């Protein structure tokens, strides 16, 4: 008993060392730190944005001020409704960050659950779930999301729903694969023979092992969900113009491309920076957590 305790504490400290080393690797990569700074910056904006600028700016329509070029008063100019683009972009952080994080989080949770149940229970349940996933995979993601939000109607919530409906499948497939692989391993069989219930075995043993790769997958996805959401908004399936989501801003600015290019470039670069931040971070985390890439 004491010897196993000592062993486990030793592996515990080893794991801790490994973890500290991983963190060290993560923070010694300049690009990753840069990505983290971007993410931190936009997260801060998303949280305190409405305190920095007037949250009613999207409603502040003033046709006398329309399409003003950048100036001291309006650092990013004004849009066709005479609203200050700088304020709109700051307020938009809340929409774009929340949709990309929430879509990934909910899709991952749904996917993990479906995949885990499918992989563990097997049989008809597995067959049913995986055929559904197969069918959803037959549509390119953006097309399916577009069709769904078209059917549901234009709103921020429906945009979110359509993206979740598209995104959960890849997590489910991945999780199922992980569960099948882990299930084969001896220790699951061993814990079964110890009389643990199926449910507990699943959650105590399989999940922790499969969770790391899922985190990598999820971090890598945040950026592309953000781009998809903005893309759908751009083609007109996003929220109303009074919700300053960045893709919606570009959509409104597009007709004025040659007259007022700042209406497109400012929110466009903002989306680029934000998704770049998440992608840099995701890349770094993958490099660190995937030992095969560690050199």
């Amino acid at each position, binding site marked *: 008993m004491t010897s196993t305790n000592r062993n486990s504490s030793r592996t515990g400290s080893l794991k801790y060392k490994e973890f500290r080393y991983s963190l060290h690797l993560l923070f010694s990569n300049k690009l990753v730190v840069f990505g983290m700074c971007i993410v931190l910056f936009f997260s801060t904006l998303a949280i305190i944005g409405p305190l920095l600028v007037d949250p009613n700016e999207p409603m502040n329509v003033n046709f006398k001020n329309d399409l003003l070029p950048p100036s001291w008063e309006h650092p990013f100019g004004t849009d066709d409704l005479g609203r200050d683009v700088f304020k709109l972009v700051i307020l938009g952080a809340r929409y774009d960050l929340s949709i990309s994080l929430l879509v990934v989080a909910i899709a991952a949770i749904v996917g993990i659950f479906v995949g885990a149940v499918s992989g563990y229970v097997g049989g008809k349940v597995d067959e049913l779930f995986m055929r559904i996933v197969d069918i959803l995979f037959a549509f390119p993601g953006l*097309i399916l999301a577009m069709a769904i939000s078209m059917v549901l109607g234009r709103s921020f919530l429906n945009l979110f729903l359509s993206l979740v409906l598209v995104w959960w499948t890849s997590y489910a497939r991945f999780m199922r694969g992980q569960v099948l692989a882990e299930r084969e391993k001896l220790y699951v069989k061993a814990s079964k023979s110890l009389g643990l219930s199926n449910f507990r075995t699943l959650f105590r043993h399989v999940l922790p092992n499969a969770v790391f790769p899922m985190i990598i997958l999820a971090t890598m996805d945040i950026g592309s969900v953000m781009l998809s959401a903005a893309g759908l908004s751009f083609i007109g399936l996003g929220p109303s113009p009074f919700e300053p989501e960045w893709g919606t801003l570009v959509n409104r600015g597009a007709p004025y491309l040659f007259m007022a290019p700042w209406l497109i470039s400012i929110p466009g670069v903002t989306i680029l920076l934000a998704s770049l931040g998440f992608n840099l971070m995701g890349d770094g985390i993958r490099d660190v957590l995937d030992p095969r*890439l560690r050199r």
Partner: protein
Amino acid sequence: MKIYEYAIRRIFLLIFVIFGVTIITFIFTRVLLNPLAAYITDKTPPDAVIAIIQAHGFDRPIYEQYFIYLKDLVTLDWGWSNVGHMALTDAIRTFFPATVELTILAIIITVLIGVPLGIISALKNNKWQDHASRIFSLVGISIPVFWLGLSLQYAFTYWTRSIGLPFLPSTGRVDPLLLIQNPVQGWTGMLMLDSFLQGNFVITLDVFKHLILPAITLAFLNVGILTRLTRSSMLEVIRQDYITMAKAYGLPRRVIIYKYALKNAMIPVITSVGLIFGGMLGGAIITESIFSYPGMGWLSYRAIVFNDSNTILAYVVVVAIIFVSVNLLVDIIYAWLDPRIKY
């Protein structure tokens, strides 16, 4: 198992998936949305409506309606496209070849840039070439397609023109006047291919000028994806024992990399090209709307603007069927390339 047996089994699976696809589109078009919308226009006389309802079985139970829907799909009785001002099947025949042409050019650009860049990146691992290509591909996967398209449009059709440099056409597929002077027969509907085959190079060049910016826009994200994939695949392969062995047995580096490592590394890359193709058919909606390029994507964009869900769902069915077929083809190529594969 022989490869054709594998192919046959995969085709059965494909048929099943297509059934599933039609169930979903059926639910969208005939259950969630107004099924009549596709068969009625402003000009339909009111007394004809009942006949239409009966003809398409909109008054029957749901499960019967599904089979009627399948029959309509197979007999190409798809209804009317409001934004296309023509029957949906005609709209697809008219607009889809343009999208295919754009997508093919974009795939060619993606592969021609992405694969070599990924290989260089892997071979020069952690040198400046690698860092440059990694940053380039990271930006590639982070860039909003619509912003890239608008920026390219601004730069190469407006800005270069304003400072007196050569410029590209900002919208459309071909100069209509030029097309009247040099008519092209519609063989495949792909204007660049048709004009080229008919020796009408003036049009070929003009279509290419119209295509190049949309194709770059559509390709950019995928170049990033493919570069990253090629890089990691190649890195994985050159670390394999059989590469060490080829080295130890004195094979020249050229042969090791470009013959042995490349074939192994390309296997996952080829699989992803199928996925990229599907992604492009979706991305075409954004790209074509920016450049007013008259393909299915542009028509779908107009359908979104004018709330014509039938046109969109028709495009969805077509894309899904093409997408699963391409993926089937890719899987068969995969099995043929990798002799280890278990069918």
